[in-house]
């Protein structure tokens, strides 16, 4: 296989990795917020259940969670796991896992907000939803952005775990080409791809941080 073909193959694989990356963020960022509400809920049962959820998601390997999400429905309910479910399982497992991490990041941000902000909003007559989305959340986002950037960069590299349930993203393709070519060249190309993508992510996040620097 010539070098341009390797590049072409891995670029195609990179698109699949980016698909995992983008869909995971699309689902886990809002889900994490909802989970953080559950974690901070005054209802003790809800907050306890969510606490266990977060503990399990953070305390077990993502690779194992992928296996459970993909094979679990069959072993538990004899569900058909063929066809598109493989990809759905990848996104589901990644989103559930990352939402747990994001939930804790949101929580740290929300709990760090001074109570005066809530009080000022209350006195001015803002509803609870307005208070959260107009006053609290924008400030929370600014506070948690560095922690979110860390997770997002980890996610780029974690996409390679999708092969645990045979979803051939970029790193898996690199391994397969390496086996066929009996060289390490595809891995070097893969490393460059990951690095460039992460560089892009870092630049975007830095830009976002700068944009939010208009206030302190």
């Amino acid at each position, binding site marked *: *296989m*010539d070098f341009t*073909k390797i590049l*072409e*193959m891995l670029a*195609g694989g990179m698109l699949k990795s980016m698909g995992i990356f983008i869909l995971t963020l699309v689902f886990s960022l809002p889900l994490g917020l909802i989970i953080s509400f559950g974690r901070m809920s005054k209802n003790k049962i809800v907050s306890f*259940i*969510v606490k*266990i*959820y977060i503990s*399990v*998601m953070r305390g*077990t390997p993502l690779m*194992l*969670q992928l*296996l*459970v*999400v*993909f*094979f*679990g429905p*069959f*072993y*538990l309910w*004899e569900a*058909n*796991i*063929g066809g598109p479910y*493989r990809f759905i399982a990848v996104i589901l497992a990644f989103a*559930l896992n990352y939402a747990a991490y994001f939930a804790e990041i949101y929580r740290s941000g929300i709990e760090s907000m001074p109570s005066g902000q809530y009080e000022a909003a209350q006195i001015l007559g803002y509803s609870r939803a307005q208070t959260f989305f107009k006053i609290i959340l924008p400030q929370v986002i600014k506070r948690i952005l560095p922690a979110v950037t860390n997770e997002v960069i980890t996610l780029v590299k974690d996409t390679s775990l999708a*092969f*645990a*349930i*045979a979803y*051939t993203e970029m790193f*898996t*393709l690199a*391994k*397969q*080409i*390496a*086996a*066929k*070519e*009996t*060289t*390490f060249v595809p891995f070097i190309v893969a490393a460059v791809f990951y690095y460039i993508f992460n560089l892009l992510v870092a630049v975007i996040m830095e830009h976002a941080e700068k944009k939010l620097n208009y206030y302190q």
Partner: protein
Amino acid sequence: MKKKILSVLLAAAMVGSLTVGCGSNSSEEKKDTAPTTEEGKETTEETEAKTETITSVAKKEGDTFTVGFDAEYPPYGYMDDNGDYTGFDLELAQAVCDLKGWKLVKTPIAWDSKDMELNSGSIDCIWNGFTMNGREDDYTWSDPYVDNSQVMVVSESSGIKDLAGLSGKIVGVQASSAALELLQDEEGQKKLADTFATLQEFPDYNSAFVELQAGSVDAIAMDVGVAKYQLETRGEGYAILDEELNTEKYAIGFRKDDTGTRDQVNEALKELVKDGTFTKLAEKYDIADMVCLKAE
């Protein structure tokens, strides 16, 4: 190995029932939120029961036939210059599908998860230089089609000439491979393996060969077909020991109860031997001296 995977999966399934329950609000699923130890055991039994109750249904024309394979296993299953999956086994599978009017789906799998993939029905068979010896009771097997042997690859400069020369050496082997099972089997070559300094497991042959070249391992155990492909593409400097670890057979592994599909594939293979397609493919992949499937 299979038992190990099963136990991991069962642990995982229990974790799964917990997490699935937590993630939902419906009262129906809330029952699953706190599995006691006993419920966990029930799950175990259920799982085993279900594994055995998948019914065997023969395939019809137009059905899909999903082959699970390790895409890092040339010449049997690997990626070609165009980035498509190919190899002796996959081309043979294609020929079977052409004959039967099935649609072939090539699914590269994580070799460690092959049993879960097969039992859950996400693949129809494992067809990928799959050694049946030692695994006779774990799958429903097709007729064996390749006489394989497990061999040792050493670097020429090492001076190792026979299996006895491996005493006190570091030997590499692919994780979950037939070679590993053989070296861990009391009735196989465990006695030989006990003379090694270390039996080192590798995820893939690339890293194993780099270590061999670097001298951090002294020999690698693998299938002879794989060994030939590796030596051919890597060039000078390596040797296969004449003394073989064993001889064994490759066959296609189906789900335990899936004799229906197995019989159909056997039938098709015999026809492919008769019309010469089988031999032609064996020659194309340079393993004509190893194939063993007869028309009768």
